[in-house]
């Protein structure tokens, strides 16, 4: 079957054996992923959980000349609010389905919304995003798409998010990317290639993207950045690029894989450009592909020397850090911390799958007992783990930084800190230095009573993580 024929891609669990719940040493993870069958894990209790709709909207929010319609009851639009809060400047609407719509079908309402928004904004593309109500009702989006696409001469892209097909929100990236590719990229596998390189950037910090772009520009590489902060024309151009390089091997994986398999745009498989060595490896991988290794080598040497000068005698020697980030980000930050002389006490990552096998195997050799905790939003588990491990420093996104600080652990938020590229190393080092030097705030917070009872802390950390039995 053609790669893009289905309405939506297979879930990450099915494609990559993705686990959303796991706890154990890295050696056990490595052994498990060496096998053919991965037993799914379930959480018998979850404090909070992300939804694939959120992740799909994150992709669509990157396409500047678009309008997004969340086709569902108004509560489903809460996912859109999240992106407003995150500062995304995107135009999105909700069809606000009522009880009658869910019984009689809501295609008329959807049609009216598309036409009205087209007249008001004249976007280059309209996205129609599904949700559980639409999926359960089998509501008809397709005929509205076909009909209005011709009538308005406008690309209308349905994104069939269900909210229940996958337990891992990261699948939402794939669902949105699948639709973008299916409806905007055409069928031609033999499109005339241009000299540009696709820089695949999904949900990246704008400064990270900018730094990566600048580095590639210094090597004289012409870029087409998708899908973050792009237009549909850029997306269309992607199929005729010379190659694709991802800013992360995780989030844009589906995009890179389809561009490679269906459109013959080679995907350069490389880890995040984080840390001096990581950035050098990233630059050299694309330069090697383009036959320009010397320039990359030269740039790397100059930049490494600059960074060494800026870092001075900064070292993380003797500092044990706990990392809690999205998976590919966490693994690359781990490398960076080790590069700075530090030690990693443990990891909490959002998901674990076959894309991470390389990291797992490498870590299993280097540090087999390192504990990996897989969780997206389970602060209660993480706090218990941190209390036991008592690291000297915590690096994470902003979601439960406050709670970690109350354990008296110095925290650094990577939510709004750009860490890609050479300059990212310095930025992170400065932030860490500040956090370690100002520990008294955390120590004061630690005097406040814990929101958790001792009984919870006495339980094993994987109390709620069970192997799925059928």
């Amino acid at each position, binding site marked *: *079957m*053609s790669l*893009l*024929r*289905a*309405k939506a891609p*297979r879930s990450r669990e*099915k494609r990559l054996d993705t686990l959303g719940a796991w706890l154990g040493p890295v050696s056990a993870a490595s052994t498990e992923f060496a096998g053919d*069958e991965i037993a*799914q894990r379930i959480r018998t209790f979850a404090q909070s959980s992300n939804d694939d709709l959120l992740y799909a909207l994150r992709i669509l929010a990157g396409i500047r000349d678009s309008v997004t319609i969340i086709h569902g009851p108004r509560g489903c639009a809460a996912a859109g609010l999240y992106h407003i809060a995150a500062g995304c400047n995107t135009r999105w609407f909700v069809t606000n389905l009522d009880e009658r719509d869910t019984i009689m*079908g809501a295609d008329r309402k959807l049609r009216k919304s598309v036409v009205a928004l087209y007249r008001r904004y004249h976007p280059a593309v309209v996205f129609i995003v599904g949700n559980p109500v639409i999926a*359960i*009702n*089998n*509501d*008809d989006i*397709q*005929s509205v*798409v*076909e*009909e209005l696409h011709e009538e308005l001469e406008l690309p209308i892209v349905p994104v069939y998010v269900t909210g229940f097909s996958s337990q891992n929100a990261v699948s939402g990236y794939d669902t949105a990317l699948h639709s973008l590719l299916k409806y905007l990229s055409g*069928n031609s596998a033999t499109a005339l290639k241009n000299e540009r390189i696709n820089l695949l950037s999904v949900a990246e910090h704008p400064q990270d993207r900018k730094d990566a772009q600048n580095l590639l520009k210094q090597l004289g590489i012409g870029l087409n950045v998708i899908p973050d902060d792009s237009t549909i024309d850029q997306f269309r151009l992607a199929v005729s690029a010379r190659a694709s390089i991802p800013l992360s091997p995780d989030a844009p994986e589906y995009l890179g894989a389809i561009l490679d398999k269906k459109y013959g745009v080679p995907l350069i498989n490389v880890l995040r450009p984080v840390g001096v060595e990581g950035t050098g490896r990233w630059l050299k991988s694309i330069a090697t592909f383009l036959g320009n290794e010397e320039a990359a080598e030269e740039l790397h040497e100059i930049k490494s020397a600059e960074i060494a000068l800026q870092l001075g005698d900064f070292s993380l020697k003797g500092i044990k850090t706990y990392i809690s980030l999205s998976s590919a980000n966490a693994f690359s930050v781990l490398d960076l911390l080790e590069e700075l002389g530090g030690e990693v006490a443990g990891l909490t990552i959002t998901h674990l799958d076959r894309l991470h096998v390389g990291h797992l195997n490498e870590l299993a050799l280097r540090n087999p007992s390192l504990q990996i905790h897989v969780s997206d939003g389970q602060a209660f588990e993480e706090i218990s783990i941190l209390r036991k491990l008592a690291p000297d420093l915590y690096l994470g996104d902003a979601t439960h930084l406050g709670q970690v600080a109350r354990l008296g652990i110095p925290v650094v938020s990577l939510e709004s800190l750009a860490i890609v590229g050479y300059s990212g190393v310095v930025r992170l080092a400065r932030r860490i230095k500040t956090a370690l030097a100002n520990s008294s705030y955390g120590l004061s917070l630690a005097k406040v009573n814990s929101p958790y009872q001792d009984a919870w802390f006495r339980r094993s950390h994987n109390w709620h993580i069970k192997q*799925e039995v*059928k």
Partner: protein
Amino acid sequence: MSKKIGKHIAIYGKGGIGKSTTTSNISAALAESGYRVIQIGCDPKSDSTTILRGGNDLPTVLDTLREQSKVRIEDISAVGFGGVLCIEAGGPVPGVGCAGRGINAAVELLQELKIFEEFKPDFVLYDVLGDVVCGGFAVPIRDGLADRAFVVTSSDFMAIFAANNLFKAVNKYALSGGARLGGVIANSILAAYAPALIDDFAAKTGTQVIGYVPRSLVVAQSELYGKTVIESVPQSEQAQVYRKLAKYIDENEDSVIPKPLNSPELKKWAREWGDRIFEVETGVVHEMASI
């Protein structure tokens, strides 16, 4: 986009109208002519392929999904008469869940298992319950799964009513890549007026009758033995009727977008036929009618 493997045909009809019997006999006839056939029962009753399998048990796709995390093709299929690959989508436990979503999930699983790529069928027949054409039951005709749909109907008004409803669904989805209507299969023909009534309905809705299957004891008998007519009485006239239908489906690619009647039109049409049948039965002679 890659080419679809085999011709995909959906056969709809009101429950109990003989749709599974007809579909199974068509599958058997196609298999007898040397074709590779898959028959997929899309009905929570999950008895579509019984007479192709000699009445043996076959776990449904949904039952298997409920019990196993990894499902293989062998777990949910059985090879029946003439090598027909039999699959039953099944449904949730009666009284809970959504049968329509069940069909959806089953079809998705079949695609995931790459069953068409593996089996390389010439024909895939979806046998779908036609009483309820909610979103789920419309899956085979709306998502580009089937190329053509056929409707099995008798001359009973409720069967015609269900057929008309199906026409509405085909009419809605055909423009956006859904299946078109191949025609009507008139089943359980007993009364003398039945063919004319179904012909008239087909004409009014812009479609055609592709075959008339008489009501026959042979069918009932074969079913009791858990067999298709093609298998149990291959020389019978009834078997010939099914072979003709299969031949039509094989050789004829004609399809239309039907024009379903709206509710008042359908009522008016039914009333007129009611009057006509009453007159025939009671022997009313109209003024000026030549005798």
